[in-house]
């Protein structure tokens, strides 16, 4: 799968798993996902939900370490984390 297709898939995953009202294509690639001060405003429960969905679908485990936790910063970071060797 090319990186752009992966990003589209991840946006759909975020919208569906977090029960959001916006369209998947409204999420920007570099937009911050988690935090009350950002537009999407996802919280820690959303982060946990996304982490489990990513593990189920892509087999990549987002643990509590800073490096992997940074994967939830944006769609760009999440796609890079999944495709990293």
């Amino acid at each position, binding site marked *: 799968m090319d990186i752009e297709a992966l990003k589209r898939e991840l946006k759909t995953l975020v919208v569906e*798993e*977090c*029960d*959001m*009202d916006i369209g998947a294509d409204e999420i920007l690639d570099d937009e911050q996902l988690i935090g009350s001060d950002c537009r999407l405003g996802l919280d820690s*429960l959303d982060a*946990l*939900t996304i982490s*489990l*969905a990513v593990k*189920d679908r892509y087999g990549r485990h987002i643990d509590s370490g800073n490096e992997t936790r940074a994967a939830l910063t944006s769609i760009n970071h999440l796609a890079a984390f999944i495709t990293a060797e």
Partner: protein
Amino acid sequence: MRIEVAAAGEYYADLGAADQLHEVKDLRPLLAAVCRERFRRIDRFTQLALLGSGHCVRDGRLPADTGLYISSGFGSIANTVNVQRQMFIDRRVPKPLTFINTLSNSAGYYVARNLGLTARNQFVSRDAAPLEAALQLATLDLVRGDIGQALVGVVDEASLPLDEHARRLGVGADVPLAEGSHWLLLRPAGASVPSATLAAVDTLADVAALSAWFARFDASPDARIWFADDVSPPARAACPMLERLEAALGVYRSRTAGAVLRYLSGTTGEELITVVEDDGRYHVMRFVGRL
């Protein structure tokens, strides 16, 4: 203390029998009319609670000292089934929010948030007579003066497939099923123009106690009775002066509450008495309608 029913409201849906084609209704389009905000990640049980409470508190405003009491026979059963299936059949970790929503008292959080309530907030689950359980808690707190009024709701959802749900309810696949969210706003007497008075809500140990309970008051010729479930012949014999109220409701754990709501919507002064048999004991309620 006399306790009056100041308002009532509900969501109710007939689902048909399990051997027919069916689907449970998507409630999300209905929620916008009763919710101050769009709540994400809520399950259907919470949606039902929000709908019923919203229909009871029509202007969405209650004093902050209103106690909130929610009860249910099965609680968030669809979520619970899903979580069990994911864990023990699929061998997968359940989604965090699906798991959290199996704690049915999360519905209480959302109802309180929607109505701006900050006082007592309790959830009680009891297989038999869930409304009566919540009313007993609420009336106790009202009598003690712990709360100024009480918003009491009983919620029971149906889960798919319906034939499985029919077995859970102990009925055949040809029996019409239903789901509902029935709510009462209770206040001490004199605080409002009531639709009825809640004259009694008691749990009785056996048939002898049931007979004694009926003997305590002089049932008027207009008094009516509604059996929530098929009660045993001795219990029927204990109250021969009363007639059965045909409420035309499908089967679900909270249908006594459905009968109460139907009575309240049409009462012209007669009494309603409900009896639910529960493993040898009896839960009874008595409402007296406003003339």
